[in-house]
């Protein structure tokens, strides 16, 4: 779909690519969410995260979220890009960019997309500590 860019990749994500995709003369604003790898969970020091995905289904679910976000908030274009594999502190696992005629739609669609992604897209992260590793959310 020409208003939606979905990507799941082991390459480094590109903010410029997401921006360039959603940018459009009909839009008055672009909202961007960038997820970054944090160096701690509770009080434990995190060394790195390992993201794995059920690729084909993750792409479908991300596309579903993108379509829903555009329709629900009347946003114009959306990019949802997610990384897989080992990411270090400060690396970027996810970028969501949304353009819309007016800012409220861009903000709301972007928040909707990242919140929904965290609920439904089959991607898992394993936190690696000094003394072991754990699947995040595995025991809710």
């Amino acid at each position, binding site marked *: 779909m020409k208003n939606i860019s979905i990507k799941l990749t082991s390459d480094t994500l590109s903010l410029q690519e997401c921006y360039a995709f959603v940018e459009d003369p009909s839009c008055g604003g672009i909202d961007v969410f960038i*997820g970054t790898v944090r160096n701690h969970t509770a009080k434990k020091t995190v060394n790195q995260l390992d*993201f*794995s*995905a*059920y690729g*084909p*289904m*993750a792409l*479908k679910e991300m596309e579903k979220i993108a379509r829903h976000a555009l329709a629900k908030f009347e946003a114009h274009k959306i990019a949802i890009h*997610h990384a897989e594999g080992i990411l270090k502190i400060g690396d970027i*696992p*996810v970028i969501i960019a949304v353009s819309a005629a007016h800012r409220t739609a861009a903000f709301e669609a972007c928040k909707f997309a*990242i919140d929904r*992604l*965290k*609920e*439904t*897209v*089959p*991607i*898992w*992260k*394993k936190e690696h500590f000094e003394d072991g590793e754990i*699947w*995040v*959310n*595995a*025991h*809710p």
Partner: protein
Amino acid sequence: MKVQVLLFGIVADLIGKETLNFAIENNDTVKNLKTALRTKYPQLKNYSTYAVAVNEHYAQEDIVLKENDIIAIIPPVSGG
């Protein structure tokens, strides 16, 4: 009949595999499969908080499985 079961995250670790070729009965549902998995892999006894996808779509427990369906065990997701 046989179905393919893909395992991810903690469930792949608990079972020690990423794919199973699993035998089920005709007209078995997602719920039947969950029970059969728990019987065959007792390490899942205390682990039932996973969703199931059939052919890359989330499936309710009453969905009936068909030969060659691709089933995925989806533990709580944690992307983003």
